């Protein structure tokens, strides 16, 4: 099938196309420079055209999500939609059912989403859910930061072994990259404890978070994985945690980037908002965004996503289990927890972010500060750490805030938000606004580059034909006007067209076609010998302390159908 | 294939114990649930067999209660509750003593006397049911016969279902 999108206003930062009126041509699922005469013409004259969105960090599939859906029927009830001839029934607001997840991302013009936390023991579950999610390709990241084998290798300072372990565990769990969450803290949670800062060792192991992040980042570059170290630092959500955050980023500063990778960074810090707090307690908490943004402005080896608070009743879920228990002690709302043998832990709890609450407002303002203080949009990506700071369906609302400082001022001055926004942060003084090009960078081009996806996030020749068209005319529309914020949100919530691999899956905000999501995973080659040896070495420990047989541990091919394999040669 | 013809139970019922007063009927609290004999037999699929009525059609009782009723291991008793009555074997409970409490493993026999009431909690009342137990001279029915006499799905117009010939211990169906 061939398409030609005619006369759209195209934003394609990767290829320096900045709001030019041009046609986009599609053939066999790719962007091409010409099509035959029988190409189908889609007239998108003067409409906003971008590559399909890419989400660098979201929680959409796996055990945590499922636990959330299982124990929050009141949330499932909040998003019930009846089946149609094309779509299946939807449920859920903050933790939508699998089909709802695919439909909602697709309606927003997104085509690729990263599932940010996969415990290898339950990777089959994650892949089962990805099979149930339509219309978006998913790049799952496996959890390594509290894995006993990793702690062992780090303790023995055996990087060779660690690299082999990582490459074989990526194969076993069929994951795209590495994720580290509260390194050593989740292991401490195995005893109901936590660690504080990057130099606080995990009980028994005597290994620190800093050592784990450094070792795994070295390994990541040694192997040349497409994506970098993806870290959720220690001390999430604690007032005064920003020094820990900066220390975590700095501990890998001197590590050489692998020459063969597309990305510029060696470390990606996720949901930075939760890690940029000043003060010593919630009583005197204040923004720590400035020092953190300042560090990032000075250091190109770092990228981040924000985890913007959206003022919703949502569900927090993270492998940072001790933090979730702290939240439980604060709010008393129903607390769930799931510890996973030899690998990780996780916790869940419903949260209500209210604009009337000082803390919620502070978190909201810090998120926006980071967007506005980090100068290079290629270093900062739009996320809500969905659903932790808010459900992903709120991305368009965040964009409306970024594009209009008038709207932000309005919210502060009309007391739509608590006065901590002005008392505890610098937000009121920031009048920077994002234009459509910046939006295209922070929602498409940058996340694709950070993930090391050369065929996504742009509209150059040969790129995947993942395209989004929005029913708005950038040239005749002033997104900076406060009164237009609602329009921006509305229009970006329902794409005029979403095209996935050259097929129209959304038209006028409605799902018109279902395509299966593909499982993206990284296959490291050229390391087979080391992998074989490492497996032999660790097998006794595996057999004794896991409760499943190794043969039944791995993810079989039929759980990742259809798949996209990213083969990299580690020997290069 | 190795399996038991009936569960192993101790046999220390003292019928001549002067302290126990003989009665015709006792009131008990009935509990149901799984037990390993029932589980093994059911999941193997041997539900038509005599073994199944021995492992599921049995009321495990406290020996004192058995003495009161003058009923020995593998003799028949009638268990009656607000929801029905069923004949099952009496047997010495491995978990005794628990006077005034009987246990019938889950299965078609227990189903006759447990309560379907869920109290709007989807789960029926399988435990803590008030029931009476008395000695009976009737034989415990095999599963197929029990299902036929309790639910009468295909014998609605039969006058006297219990007088029909037994369906036996093997599947009954006509082959092509």
């Amino acid at each position, binding site marked *: 099938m061939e398409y030609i999108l005619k006369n759209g206003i195209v934003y394609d930062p990767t290829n320096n196309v900045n709001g030019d009126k041009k046609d986009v041509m599609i053939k066999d699922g790719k962007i091409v420079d010409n099509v035959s005469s029988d190409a189908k013409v889609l007239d998108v004259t003067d409409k906003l055209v971008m590559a399909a969105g890419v989400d660098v960090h979201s929680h959409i599939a796996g055990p945590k999500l*499922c*636990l959330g859906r*299982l*124990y929050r*029927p009141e949330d*499932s*009830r909040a*998003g*019930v939609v*009846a*089946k149609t001839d094309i779509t299946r029934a939807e*449920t859920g607001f903050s933790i*939508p*059912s699998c089909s709802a997840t695919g439909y909602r991302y697709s309606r927003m013009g997104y085509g690729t989403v990263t599932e940010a936390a996969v415990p290898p023991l*339950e990777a*089959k*579950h994650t892949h089962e859910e990805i099979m149930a999610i339509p219309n978006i390709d998913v790049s799952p990241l496996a959890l390594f930061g509290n894995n*006993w084998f990793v702690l062992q290798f780090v303790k023995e300072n055996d990087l060779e072994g660690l690299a082999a372990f990582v490459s074989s565990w990526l194969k076993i769990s069929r994951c795209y990259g590495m994720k580290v969450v509260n390194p050593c803290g989740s292991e401490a*949670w195995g*005893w109901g404890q936590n660690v504080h800062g990057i130099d606080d060792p995990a009980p028994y192991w005597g290994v620190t978070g800093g050592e784990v992040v450094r070792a795994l980042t070295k390994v990541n570059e040694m192997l040349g994985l497409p994506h970098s170290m993806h870290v959720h630092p220690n001390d999430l959500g604690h007032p005064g945690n920003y020094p820990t955050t900066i220390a975590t980023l700095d501990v890998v500063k001197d590590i050489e980037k692998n020459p063969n990778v597309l990305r510029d960074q060696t470390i990606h810090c996720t949901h930075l908002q939760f890690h940029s707090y000043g003060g010593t307690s919630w009583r005197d908490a204040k923004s720590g965004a400035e020092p953190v943004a300042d560090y990032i402005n000075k250091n190109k080896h770092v990228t981040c996503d924000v985890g913007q608070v959206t003022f919703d009743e949502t569900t927090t879920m993270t492998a940072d289990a001790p933090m979730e228990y702290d939240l439980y002690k604060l709010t008393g709302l*129903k*607390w*769930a*927890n*799931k*510890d996973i*043998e*030899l690998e990780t832990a996780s916790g869940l709890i419903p949260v209500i972010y209210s604009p009337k609450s000082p803390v919620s407002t502070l978190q909201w303002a810090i998120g926006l500060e980071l967007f506005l203080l980090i100068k290079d949009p290629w270093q900062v990506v739009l996320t809500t750490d969905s659903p932790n700071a808010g459900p992903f369906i709120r991305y368009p609302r965040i964009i409306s805030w970024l594009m209009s400082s008038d709207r932000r001022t309005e919210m502060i001055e009309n007391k739509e938000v608590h006065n901590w926004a002005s008392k505890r942060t610098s937000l009121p003084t920031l009048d920077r606004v994002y234009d459509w090009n910046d939006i295209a960078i922070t929602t498409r081009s940058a996340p694709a580059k950070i993930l090391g996806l050369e065929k996504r996030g742009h509209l150059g020749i040969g790129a995947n034909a993942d395209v989004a068209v929005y029913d708005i005319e950038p040239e005749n529309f002033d997104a900076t006007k406060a009164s237009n914020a609602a329009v921006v949100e509305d229009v970006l919530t329902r794409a005029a067209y979403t095209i996935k691999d050259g097929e129209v899956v959304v038209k006028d905000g409605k799902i018109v076609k279902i395509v299966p999501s593909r499982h993206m995973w990284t296959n490291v080659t050229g390391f087979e010998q080391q992998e074989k040896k490492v497996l032999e070495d660790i097998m006794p420990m595996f057999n*004794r302390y896991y409760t499943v*047989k190794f*043969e*039944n541990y791995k993810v079989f091919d039929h759980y990742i159908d259809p798949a996209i394999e990213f083969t990299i040669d580690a020997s290069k | *294939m190795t*399996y038991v013809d009936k569960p192993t139970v101790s046999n220390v019922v003292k019928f001549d114990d002067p302290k126990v007063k003989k009665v015709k009927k006792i009131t008990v609290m009935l509990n149901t649930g799984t*037990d*390993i004999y029932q*589980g*093994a037999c059911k*999941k193997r*699929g*041997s539900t038509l067999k005599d073994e199944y009525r021995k492992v*599921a059609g049995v009321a495990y009782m406290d020996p004192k209660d058995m003495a009161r009723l003058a009923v020995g291991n593998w003799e028949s008793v009638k268990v009656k509750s607000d929801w029905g009555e069923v004949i099952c074997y009496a047997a010495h409970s491995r*978990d005794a003593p628990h006077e005034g409490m009987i246990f019938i493993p889950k299965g078609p026999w227990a189903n*006759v*006397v447990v309560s*379907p*009431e869920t109290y*709007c*909690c*989807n*789960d029926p009342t399988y435990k803590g049911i008030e029931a009476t137990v008395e000695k009976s001279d009737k034989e415990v029915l095999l*599963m197929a016969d029990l*299902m*036929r006499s309790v*639910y009468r799905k*295909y014998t609605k117009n039969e006058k006297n279902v219990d007088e029909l010939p037994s369906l036996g211990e093997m*599947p*009954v*169906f*006509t082959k092509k």
Partner: protein
Amino acid sequence: MVYEEPVTDYDHIVENCTCAFCGSNCDDLDYLVKGNHVVAVRHACRLGASKIMEDEDQRLKVPMMRDENGELQEVDWDTALDAAAELIANAVRPLFYGWSETSIECMKKGLELTEYVGAVIDNQATICHGPTVQAVQNVGYPLMSLGEVKNRADMVVYTGSNPMNAHPRHLARYSVFPRGWFRQRGRFDRTLVTWDPKFSDTAKMSDIWVPFEENGDYAFCNAIRAVLKGKELKEDVISGIPKQDIIDLTEAMKNVEFGALFFGLGLTHTLSKQRNIDIAIGLVQDLNAYTKWVLLPMRGHFNVNGFNIFMAYQMGFPYGVDFCRGYPRYMIGETTTVDLLNREEPDVFMVIAADPGAHFPGGANMHLANIPVIQIDIHWGPSTELADIVLPGTFIGVETAGTSYRMDSVPIHMKSAINPPETCREDEWIVNELYERVKKIKEEAK
């Protein structure tokens, strides 16, 4: 039981098979295969072994339908499937019950059929751990994978559960006996506690037995929580347990390094049902203020938890989901099987991989005598005596591979070791056939 010589006459061994019995999903079973038969099983408990060494006499091998005299007659697959599809297509309140002893792959087809015809779909949780799920939804769910207990736990509590009878390898493989990373002496490094009115086979081997009175669970946990909050107990005896014992037990639970609470149907089936679990969960949450505590329900079937997980990720609700209005609806007591049967609402009942005839109260089963019943199963059981159409499935984990979820939600791919009988069909195939045939009938009606 007579002694039998070990089986030596077999062709080959299939290793690391997964047991298709209880929620422990032991995946270390070795099947000894001769011809196309499993002639012996290694590592399985008495329950697992007996299921895998099935009773051939009662294996359902051919499709059957009732004739005018109500007797089952062998028919060919097309006849049986068409008749079943006809019933489902014309039903106003169809109910599809079971699923806990088949694969996730089969459930996927089942849910599509359910959604298409607007039926109610429900599983065995509705008569076992449904109240647990409700309690979890009310107050939360601090759980763990079983290896956490094996590697860390120094106190293990079983309440309202008798694993020695229902999950015989649970203590041996996961919780009490195995040597863990931090518990190298196994059993000697752990305190085993049983709370149960009965001196059950598990209580008999415990270090501490707390025989609270029948229906006393709620008040007992409430008292422990009060003690945790530093309250002086009023009564001398609570739920049949002396005041001092409760205080001592509370102290002991506060002072372990890692405690695990496992609970079973003894809690979900007694007077205050889901509230027993509700408060037990609250207790474990409280204990986490002092030390590490986790809990886990002892799920009965090898995929009963799998169905709840599958439904949660597909439709946002764990069980008892009603699609009659085109969207999923989950309302305890309204969209759940036993309540619907008590109300005599369903007009067609399909049971797959379950046995209501053996496990539903007679009062509920009475309605199955009034309506058409379609059975998909591998053995002739009590439900067959109430079934109008019988469709013989295959044995997951022995004859057919499939995905299941252990009681602690660890997904396991159960491989197959032998071929199914030629005349049987895989559950997944049967349900998909029904879906296709129902669709055909409905489309033609349009």
